[in-house]
């Protein structure tokens, strides 16, 4: 089975580095992509908060004390 010589490995590495650099130059990281990430984080955060608050049981309400029955005549 073929093995790559060191020279061949270096050639492929050089190609990969340059291809990435070219791609980054043609399609740089856009602020739009980072905005999309920020929005996704925000939505996720709000969803978690909403889920948490729906899971938290309501504190028991202070029910008015029942008035004692009137003594039988």
């Amino acid at each position: 089975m073929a093995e790559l010589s060191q020279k061949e490995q270096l050639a492929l590495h050089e190609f990969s580095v340059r291809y990435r650099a070219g791609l980054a130059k043609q399609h740089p990281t856009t602020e739009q992509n980072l905005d999309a990430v920020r929005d996704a984080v925000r939505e996720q955060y709000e969803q978690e908060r909403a889920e948490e608050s729906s899971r938290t049981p309501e504190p028991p309400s202070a029910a008015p004390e029942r008035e004692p029955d009137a003594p039988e005549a």
Partner: protein
Amino acid sequence: MDDLIKNVRTYRFAAGLAERIRLAEQIFRRIEPDLRIFVFSSVTNDAAKDALQEVLKAIATSLNKFQGDTEKQFWAFCYRIARNKISDHYRQQYAERFQPVDPAELWKMMEVSAQDAPISAAVRHDLDYAIKLLTAAKPDCSDLLWRHYVVGLDYAELAEERNQTYDAIRMQIGRCLDQAKSLVS
């Protein structure tokens, strides 16, 4: 510990929104270049810009579900999400990507890179060999060599992607190299 995995772990426990956004920005500035080449190598160029944004959003949404401890596990997690997103929404463009890569197109990209780092005669010779090696074999072999040597996916990641064993992928890459080298020399 690498900053990437440190940030990912901190993100998991970050309670405040502002801190999460700050960490997410650092994480995505770091992973975006690798995901960019992964996406642009998986779907056609027309669809790739939108696909990349969808992939980034999907990872951001799942970031706090990551349970691993190493950078390798985190990359596997990111690539898994990217693959699922692409196969769910960009099946057609994914299929179209499996076309023979045109060496002239690859040379154009090399010339773009040369704007910042000029190409010497010796490097040009090496690049010529690399391009021939990557494009000489049959499309399925070319694709496998591309994803291993250019995108940078290791045997384990390719095995997961193709639903094959680690050894099967290792052997397949060896055979594809045999084929490509015999056609180049």
